[in-house]
């Protein structure tokens, strides 16, 4: 079993944190402006980007092997299916 750990520098972590704060501000901005169909998709895109940053850096997935990346991929595809299937109702109601 691989027991090595990867240390991420404070500069990188701070940059990611600032990125997350900026994206949070963007989420609030999007929620207060009417963008039509882009309203939902924009919010989802921002949320996905924020989640991606957390997973890649704070959860160290960027430095993990293929098995864990594969397992994460299965998880994300499942989540995408859950959200996607819900849209068959929301978009066509």
């Amino acid at each position, binding site marked *: 079993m691989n027991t090595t750990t990867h240390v991420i520098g404070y500069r990188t972590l701070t940059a990611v944190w600032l990125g997350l704060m900026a994206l949070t501000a963007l989420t609030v901005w999007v929620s207060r402006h009417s963008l039509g169909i882009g309203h939902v998709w924009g919010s989802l895109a921002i949320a996905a980007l924020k989640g991606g940053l957390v997973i890649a850096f704070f959860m160290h997935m960027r430095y993990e092997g293929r098995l864990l990346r594969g397992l994460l991929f299965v998880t994300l595809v499942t989540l995408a299916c859950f959200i996607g*299937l819900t849209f068959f109702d929301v*978009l066509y109601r």
Partner: protein
Amino acid sequence: MNPAENMLPAGKGGFWIDTGKTGIASWIFSTDHKRIGLLYFWSVFGFFLVGVLLGLLIRIELMAPGRTIMGPQTYNALFTVHGVVMVFLFIIPGFQGSFGNLVMPIQIGSRDVAFPRLNLFSWWLYIAGAAIILTSLFTGGGPPDTGWTFYLPFSERTGTNVSLAVFGVFIVGFSSILTGVNFVTTIHRLRAEGMTWGRLPLFVWSLYATAWVQILATPILGITLVLIIAERLLGTGLFDPARGGDPLMYQHLFWIYSHPAVYIMILPAMGVVTEIIPVFSRKPIFGYRMIAFSSLAIAAAGSLVWGHHMFTSGMSDTAILVFSFLTFVVAIPSAIKVFNWVSTLYRGSISLEAPMLFALSFILLFSIGGLTGLILGAAATDIHVHDTHFVVGHFHYVIFGGSGFAFFGAMHYWLPKFYGRRYAEKPAILGWGLMFVGFNILYFTMMVLGMEGMPRRYYDYLPEFARLNFVSTMGSWILAVGLAILLVNLFRGLRSGEPVGNNPWGGATLEWSIPTPPPTENFAKEPVVTHGPYDFRGAGIP
């Protein structure tokens, strides 16, 4: 039983005594997977008995029109608590926690699970969640009356103690997620040398598929329950159309978890049946790869069909079409399993002992439950029987006739291995027979009532439904008598019955190759696996 095995010394040994630790602390703080498995078993089984009692009371109330033994508010609370206890405290944690813990590490040739302390923590979370749920019954506004689905807007408005109950379920959900993580890691990392994926016992495959459902779907239940609490305490309006919310979104979120949860309940049961049938047919399993594949396929496809619970809710027609199609897709891997079990039985030397009788009844009752599920999965027919007793009958055929009967089969198949003693065969068969007859009278009658239009969850009903409701209640009493005979015989046997040897059934999986009861470390030296789990040559068939 092999006569030579009768010569073995009676009584407990192995993990019961070899650590030298006794007393309650040696159990509730133990990290041994077998002790944790038995902790889970007795916990979930205790809640099962509570659920049975509540179910019997519900049936007595419905025995005749009008008030029989309770008022409408008590009735509403009773069917809610019956559902919550049976679903969240018995059958969801039941197989993984008890028989998964007891058997899976041994079946893969491991000394324990990957994270033994996390395993113990899972049980403690389960107990904490259960304690909170029980507390909710006797505090605040009294037991919840929403049904186990906690549908909004009613669960936001009712004065009963919904917030505390859903918080308890939230905690139990964490226990389930941690067990799932533990099992996936264990099956990936702790298999013995030679235990390839193609040699994994099919019970382990079913636990693996189930563990993924636990990991992927349970967090959504957690979020949903938090949102109920937020609605009640903060008035967020997420599901209130007057404030821009969407009540159907609650149903989506709830069923995104709760339909896959049905597969958390049934997949390990299928795994149990897949272990029992080849052993009692004296034949290798038919279609090993397809059964393993179908476990994964059921887990995957079953996670995408939740919308069939919402056909009459006002959901879009497009969604109804899509979810109806996906629902029919799940029937394919389920049928693969049934055909493979029947093919295994074909020309086998079938031995009709108690575990096998439960496995065979599983095939019949699950098939009835599955086929009536197609009636509910087709939107056109679902509209007629939605929210009727037909749904109650269908659900119990799948979960009680399927998972429940498999649970009893597992109890008779594996518990003697861990207790070192076994039950008497004739009373077990009598108990099974009464249960089988009572079960069908109880639940088939419910499906007929549903077809005739009797709604579910109603306290009272029209006079034309009286006769069949009376018959259904009689069925519940026959079932209860059978259950009592079965359990008294089993537990008396485990306490003072005939001693069993290492391999009383002639199984070929690894748990039958080690002493009875197993030692704490399971294996004296790490096993090297050289044959498949259903290769009975040299397995000591009695």
